[in-house]
C-alpha cells in the first residue's frame, strides 16, 4: 500500500465517521429535580417533558434526571447558569432579589383554587409585561400552585383575629411570615422543607402556607386539626422552569422552537394540574382524617388583607424600579384569573 492510497483511505474513513456522528448527534440534557425523588414533579412532570421533547425532536434532544438533586432549592437557577445541570425548576420566592415579574402571582390574595387558570393567567401576564425577565437562562415554563392555607394544630380552630393573634405559628418565610408577625402571632419561619420538625415537635400550635399536597408531603397531617377557609386564598407560590443558555444554543432553531412550543403545556400545566388533583384528594379525605374546615371571620380576612398591603406595595415599588408596570401587571393577572376560572 503506497502513501497516497493510505491517505485516501484515512480521509474516506474520517469523512464517513464525521458524517455518521453528525447524523446521530444528540443533545443530552441533565434535568435537575430538587423535590424528593418520589415527588410527582420528579416522577411525572419532568420525565413527561423529556419524553415529549425526545418525540418532538425525533430523538435529537434527549435527557435524564439525576436520582438525587445536585443543588439545594435556593441554588437551582445558579446551578443552571453555571452549567452544573442543564435545566431545573426554581421556586421564584427564593430569587426575589433577581426577578420581579415572576412574583406577580405571589402577591397575597391574588389567586384562587384553580391552578390551571392561575398558571395560564401568569403566563399571559409574563408575555404581556415582562417577557424577557430571565436574561441569563432560557425560560421555558412557569406555573402557579394550589394556595397555602391556615391550619390549627389544636382542637380550637382559628376563626377570629384574637384566635390568630394568640397562636404560635409556623409560617412560610416572606409575605406570610411578615403578615402573621405584624398581626401579632408568635411566628417561627423556616423553609417549607423544615416545617415538619417545627410542627411535629410542638414548637407551634398552628401553621400557615402549606397547601393540601404539602401537608401530605411534609407529613404534618397527624398534627393538623382544622383548616380556616377564606373567601380568597391568602397566598400562592410560583415556579420557573429554565434551561442553560449555552445548552439551548446547541439545539437547532427548529428543535428549539418545538421545545418552546410544548414546554408550558407539558411542564407548567401538567404540574399545576397534578398539584390541584393531589390537594383536592387530600382535602376530600379531611372528614376521615378528622380535620375540620371552618370559615374565617370577615374581620380576620380584612386584617390579613390589610397586613398584606405593605408587602404588595414594596413589591410594586421594586418592580416599577425594574421597569415593570406593576399595577397594570397585577390588575391584569387578577382579572385573567377570574375570567379563566369562570
Amino acid at each position, binding site marked *: 500500500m503506497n502513501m497516497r492510497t493510505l491517505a485516501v483511505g484515512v480521509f474516506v474513513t474520517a469523512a464517513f465517521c464525521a458524517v455518521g456522528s453528525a447524523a446521530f448527534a444528540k443533545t443530552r440534557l441533565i434535568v435537575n429535580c430538587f423535590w424528593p425523588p418520589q415527588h410527582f414533579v420528579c416522577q411525572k412532570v419532568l420525565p413527561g417533558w423529556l419524553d415529549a421533547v425526545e418525540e418532538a425532536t425525533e430523538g435529537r434532544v434527549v435527557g435524564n434526571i439525576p436520582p438525587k438533586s445536585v443543588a439545594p432549592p435556593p441554588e437551582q437557577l*445558579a446551578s443552571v447558569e453555571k452549567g452544573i445541570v442543564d435545566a431545573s425548576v426554581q421556586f421564584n420566592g*427564593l430569587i426575589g432579589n*433577581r426577578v420581579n415579574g415572576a412574583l406577580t402571582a405571589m402577591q397575597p390574595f391574588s389567586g384562587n383554587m384553580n391552578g390551571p387558570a392561575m398558571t395560564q393567567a401568569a403566563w399571559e401576564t409574563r408575555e404581556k409585561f415582562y417577557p424577557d425577565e430571565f436574561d441569563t437562562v432560557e425560560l421555558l415554563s412557569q406555573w402557579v400552585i394550589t394556595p397555602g392555607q391556615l391550619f390549627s394544630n389544636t382542637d380550637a380552630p382559628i376563626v377570629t383575629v384574637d384566635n390568630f393573634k394568640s397562636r*404560635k405559628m409556623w409560617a412560610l418565610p*416572606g409575605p406570610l*411570615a411578615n403578615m402573621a408577625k405584624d398581626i401579632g402571632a*408568635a411566628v417561627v419561619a*423556616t423553609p417549607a422543607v423544615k416545617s415538619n420538625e417545627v410542627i411535629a415537635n410542638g414548637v407551634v400550635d398552628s401553621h400557615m402556607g402549606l397547601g393540601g399536597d404539602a401537608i401530605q408531603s411534609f407529613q404534618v397531617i397527624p398534627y393538623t386539626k382544622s383548616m380556616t377557609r377564606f373567601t380568597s386564598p391568602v397566598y400562592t407560590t410560583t415556579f420557573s422552569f429554565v434551561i442553560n443558555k449555552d445548552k439551548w444554543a446547541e439545539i437547532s432553531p427548529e428543535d428549539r422552537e418545538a421545545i418552546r412550543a410544548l414546554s408550558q403545556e407539558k411542564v407548567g400545566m401538567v404540574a399545576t394540574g397534578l398539584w390541584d388533583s393531589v390537594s383536592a384528594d387530600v382535602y376530600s379525605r379531611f372528614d376521615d382524617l378528622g380535620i375540620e374546615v371552618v370559615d374565617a371571620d370577615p374581620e380576620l380576612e380584612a386584617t390579613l388583607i390589610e397586613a398584606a398591603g405593605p408587602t404588595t406595595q414594596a413589591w410594586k415599588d421594586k418592580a416599577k424600579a425594574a421597569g415593570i408596570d406593576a399595577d397594570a401587571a397585577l390588575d391584569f393577572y387578577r382579572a385573567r384569573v377570574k375570567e379563566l376560572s369562570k
Partner: protein
Amino acid sequence: MNMAPAKQGAVRTILNRIVATLETISSVVIFIMMVLTFVDVVGRYVFHKPIFGGTEIISALLALTIFSGLGVINARDDHITVELFEDIFRRTLSPVVYEVIIQVFSVLVMTLIAAVLFEHAWENYRLDKLTEVLEMPVYYISGTVAIFAVISVLSQIAGVVLKVFDLSNGQRREES
C-alpha cells in the same frame, strides 16, 4: 529544617495568638447561640414574642462556630483520623517525610475548600443573595466563613512547620 530558634519562637507566638483569638470567637458565638435560643424559647412561651428569624440567625452562627473552630483544630492537628494504611507508610517512610506528605495534602485540601468558599461568597455578593426569613445579605455569613477558612489554612501551615521542626529535632537527637 534549619529555621532559626528566634523565627520558630515568632511562628509559635503568632500561631498561639491566632488559636487563642479563634477560641475566643468560637466561645462568644456559642454563647450568643445559647442566649438567643433561651430568649427565643422564653419569648415564645412566656411573652408570646419569639425572636423573628431566630432559627436563621442560629444557623448562621453555627456556620461561624464550625469554621472558627476549624482553625483551632487545624493548628493543633486534632482532626479525627482513620489509620487505614498507616503501617505500610510508617514502615517505608521516615517520620518527617511521612508527616510532611500528610500535612501538605491536608493543606492543599483545606486551601481548595477556602477557595471554593471564597468563590461562593463572591457569588452571593455579586447576585445580592438574601436569606429567606430576615432577608439579610448571605455574603455576610459566607464571606466571614471564607475568611475563617483562610485563617484556618494559615494556622494549619504554621502548625505543620512547627510540627515538622519538632520531629526533625527529635530525629537529630535520636541519631546523636
